């Protein structure tokens, strides 16, 4: 069942409710926050790793890191936290890709039985996307996915990747040049 973000409640979900409830010992303090932020994070992880299974693990690890960072008061505002989560998910996905390169493992496991057709289609598209972006260096791949698929602005990509806008532009230019050279004539 797809989850739609409960927009409008986002601010309260983190800025007011979550820290207070978490400090009070409520183990479900972040439930709403997870519900709101996870669709974008999960989609990003899937697009980067090309695998639903890996994406699920990456997002879980990122939320666990979020709790650790929250305990250490590493971020204070929701927007900062969201960018932080985006960055953690992107890095987590890259880690999966590097590990996969080393082990030469298959990109995706066999689809589960009874998978709905829409999900199967998405799985197939992810496989195509993964093979498409395979030749790009990690930094360029993340920049391209964030900009072209996730629709972030250059400034936002720079914020997620913690680099300058110029560096983002450079990565995008190089990624496009590589793809153009590889697929331009197909």
């Amino acid at each position, binding site marked *: *069942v*797809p*989850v*739609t973000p409960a*927009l*409008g409640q*986002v*601010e309260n979900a983190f800025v007011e409710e979550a820290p207070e409830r*978490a400090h009070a*010992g409520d*183990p*479900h*303090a*972040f*439930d709403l926050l*997870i*519900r709101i932020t*996870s*669709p974008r994070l*999960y*989609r990003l992880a*899937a*697009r980067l790793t090309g695998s639903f299974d890996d994406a*699920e693990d990456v*997002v*879980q690890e990122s*939320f*666990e890191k*979020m*709790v650790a960072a929250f305990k250490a008061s590493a971020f204070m*505002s*929701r*927007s*900062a936290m*969201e*960018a932080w989560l985006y960055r953690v998910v992107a890095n987590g996905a890259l880690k999966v890709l*590097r590990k996969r*390169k080393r082990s030469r493992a298959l990109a995706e496991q066999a689809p589960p039985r009874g998978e709905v057709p*829409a999900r199967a*289609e*998405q799985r197939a*598209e*992810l496989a*195509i*996307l993964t093979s*498409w972006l395979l030749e790009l*260096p990690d930094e360029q791949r993340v920049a391209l996915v964030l900009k*072209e*698929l996730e629709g972030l602005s250059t*400034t*936002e990509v*720079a*914020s997620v990747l913690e680099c300058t*806008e110029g560096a983002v532009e450079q990565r995008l230019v190089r990624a*496009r040049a590589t*793809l*153009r050279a590889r*697929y*331009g004539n*197909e």
Partner: protein
Amino acid sequence: MSDFDAPLARMRAATEGIAPTERQLARWQAAVALALTERPRPPRSRLWMAVAALAAGICVLAGVGALKTATGVHRVDATGGPVLTEAARFHFAQELIQDDHWLEARYELRKMSPGYPGVAGYLARAEREVPNELALDAANAALERGDLAAASKALDRVSADSSQYARAQQLRHALDVRTLEIMVLAQQARGEGDQERMKQLTDSILAVRRSDMTGPALDLESGKVVGAPRPEEAGVLRFLEGDLTGAIALEDDCATKSVVKCKATARGMREFAEMYKKLEDLDAHGLKKLLALDREITDGRRSKLAKTAGIKLGATLCKSATAARAAGQYARAGELASQARLADPENNCASAILSDLKIRAHDLFMLAYSLKDQDPDQAVEKFKLVIQMTAADSEDSVKAAKWIRELQ
């Protein structure tokens, strides 16, 4: 649209609907709940991995420490020096590459096993970049000894796709500055009727002309300057580099030949210098004036000194923007943050505020959208706020305006 934009758009659309299932949500929520309430003990295998990683880390640190102590430099003699682990050497090579020290990086990478992940790719890049690095070093040395022709030839050897683009641009700019200065001297010599000196000076820059040069050109046949530079340009170039004294001296020199523009530029530069002395005491208004003066002098280009002022103005404006945001004055916060980013494009604070406002505006838009049927008046109020918080051409602003028209 390029050839691969269409499949990219298709993939974007095809993967747009990816969303977690309730089972996945439940799993994440349970994991976070566990992390919040417990301090999980790592399983035995993880403990062993942690111990092994710690031991490896100590070895790497010891190796690097010993290396630095023994040699004082990064390179290691294969016959006697301490040995770095592959991982440590790879990391070291990556750091060298980040600093564009390709020659040294190649030296380190060649010592590694070719099968180590990433080594082959980096080595291939190093093979391409080392000649560029050497050419840039040669250009730098030639510029330092005043041999403009040699510097130009060396810069021509740098490939267009080099990752050392910024350094190449910097050296090209320095070469342009030196060339223009000599051109001004050549023009003066010509004006004084000293043909021999004029020829000597123009000869030295004959080989420098490039297609992307912004300054005047030389007639290769006659060796004379054609399309004469703007008289104040030499001083302005010095100004752009942050050399106020040199710039004013050049403009004054130019002004003695009764060139009105040079007098005006020199006056502007003096005013800039006076204001710049009090940079620390300038408020936002003063800083804006200083930057306007810089734009006037440099014809829209920004000098190095103005960059400092821009950073200060950006910080000042962003402080006000932060306060406005805290007070709930989102429109004002957005305007101030935009101004801050204009003054200092690298101002992270401004980018963060603008990004935050964009998110808030979108959330507010969605809230207003959900209210439009039950409480249209409140929805209109919120749509109006969205318009104040966002740029006029943003999607949320356009949609909000449309809904206000429909609801009123």
